[in-house]
């Protein structure tokens, strides 16, 4: 089931583009323009890892000593998903961008005891994490922004 995005992607894209034009993007990540990925990279102190084109989307890679991050970009140039692996989780306030407050409210409820995984689903964003010490993983995506024909499991 898909939920409705908070802001239509085109409007979001226009806003992001305007932000770039005026002062450079203040933040990037989910829902933002691919051009802002460099901002994420600086915030995460990561090195660029290049882009790989797939059918229906492009994956922009970056890596820091703590984790490798992949941002999934639609043909319209909007980041619709992020995924990561590493020895630490990346700072989600960077990767979730404007969806971060919504996520933070939903995640405030403590996780049940004894788990190595968690799914937090809000009206607009899904955040899934799993793994254990020395092998942590996660992904986050905005269902309404995932391009038609791209499977959720491509976000890895």
């Amino acid at each position, binding site marked *: 089931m898909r939920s409705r995005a908070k802001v239509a992607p085109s409007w979001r894209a226009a806003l992001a583009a305007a932000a770039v034009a005026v002062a450079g993007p203040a933040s990037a990540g989910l829902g933002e323009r691919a051009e802002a990925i460099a901002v994420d990279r600086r915030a995460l*102190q990561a090195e660029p890892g290049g882009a790989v084109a797939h059918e229906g989307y492009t994956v922009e890679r970056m890596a*820091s*000593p*703590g*984790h490798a991050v992949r941002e999934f970009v639609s043909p319209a140039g909007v980041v619709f998903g992020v995924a990561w692996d590493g*020895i*630490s*989780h*990346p*700072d*989600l*306030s960077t990767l979730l961008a404007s969806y971060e407050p919504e996520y933070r409210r939903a*995640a405030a409820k*403590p*996780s*049940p*005891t*004894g*788990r*190595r*995984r*968690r*799914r937090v689903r809000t009206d607009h964003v899904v*955040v*899934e*994490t*799993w*793994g*254990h*010490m*020395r*092998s*942590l*993983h*996660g*992904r986050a995506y905005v269902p309404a922004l995932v391009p038609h024909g791209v499977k*959720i*499991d491509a976000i890895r």
Partner: protein
Amino acid sequence: MRSVERRLGAGAVLAAALALACGGDGGGGLPDTGRNVVPVSADGALCGGNPGTYVNEPCVRVTVCSPGTQTCQTIDDVLLDTGSFGLRIFKQVLTVPLASISAGSGELAECVHFGDLSASWGPVRLAGVILGGEPAVEVPVHVIDATFSGRPPSCSNPDTDPASAGFNGILGVGAFAEDCGGACAASSNTGIYFACSGGSCSGAAVPVGQQVKNPVAALPQDNNGVVVKLPSVAAGGAPSADGTLVLGIGTAQDNAPGAVSVLDLDGSGEFRTSLAGKSFSSFADTGSNALFFDPPGGVSLPVCASNPDWFCPPSAASLSATNSGASGRGSAAVAFQVASFDQLDKANNAVFPTLAGPGLGSGEFDWGLPFFLGRAVYVGLEGRSSPLGTGPYVAH
């Protein structure tokens, strides 16, 4: 730089600790144990005060001492965790002073992340640690303290207190000697280790010898791994289950390996599991309180209508998986059952061998506590030799 692996030679420390342990603080009824045996109780006498809320929780007692002294305390309700490495204790339960470790112009602190996106934050301190009847070993331990110094923003969702966590600490006895290893020695930017001073913290590169250490790796003998031995539990569950953590593999009569398959682990501590034609990366983890995996097509395990964290098959499902090493060597079949969470007798029982839930798209097979019930599981430490070979490995 001082060695942080120095062993406390003083038998007096052990004697003092044993005196404490026998001092009527709730230890009555535990079996007499040998040098290398640590009693484990799943939801039993060692688990303290969270009955009914934390099922399949394996608990141990650990003795912590001020380094180099005979000032010690025993701490119960410490989660036995083969999915992590090193000892972590909540500040709220610590009564003996531990020694800070300098880093930069301040002191060393750490943020460790967990799979559920929670974290533990606090200073790294030197402590004498006593496991079972072993001599004390001096190792860096993690003091869990969400309020310590200037917690970095990347260390979100920190554990705050024993009551909400469900334990007083975590004893990580998985297949690695340190919680991070070479990556944290090579870089100050892993998001794990920090140097804190004046209420602010910045990333720090930390030599492996100063990282939080699995105390098993520091033992004078019995230092090549552990065996987790928990009894079988009837399908309907039990109020508690008592077993042992045996230190060392093939170092004494009580840890001589039986006929087991050795599964070598990759650098992340993982092996492989196949179930109904689907292949998973997998790990054996006493700190996960159930089996967690996404069932392959053809295996019907619906989640509960009441709680999507668990499976609720209409009748118990009998399944068989095959574990193999990360390199493809070794092969061990595992037969297991998954029953409906809704039908478990949670009013009377707390240990359930049939409890399982979805993997949330992870592609992982998490062999949590039910896997350990009724079988001896060997966890071989990285780089240490044993009759089962050189670690890291899991064998069962």
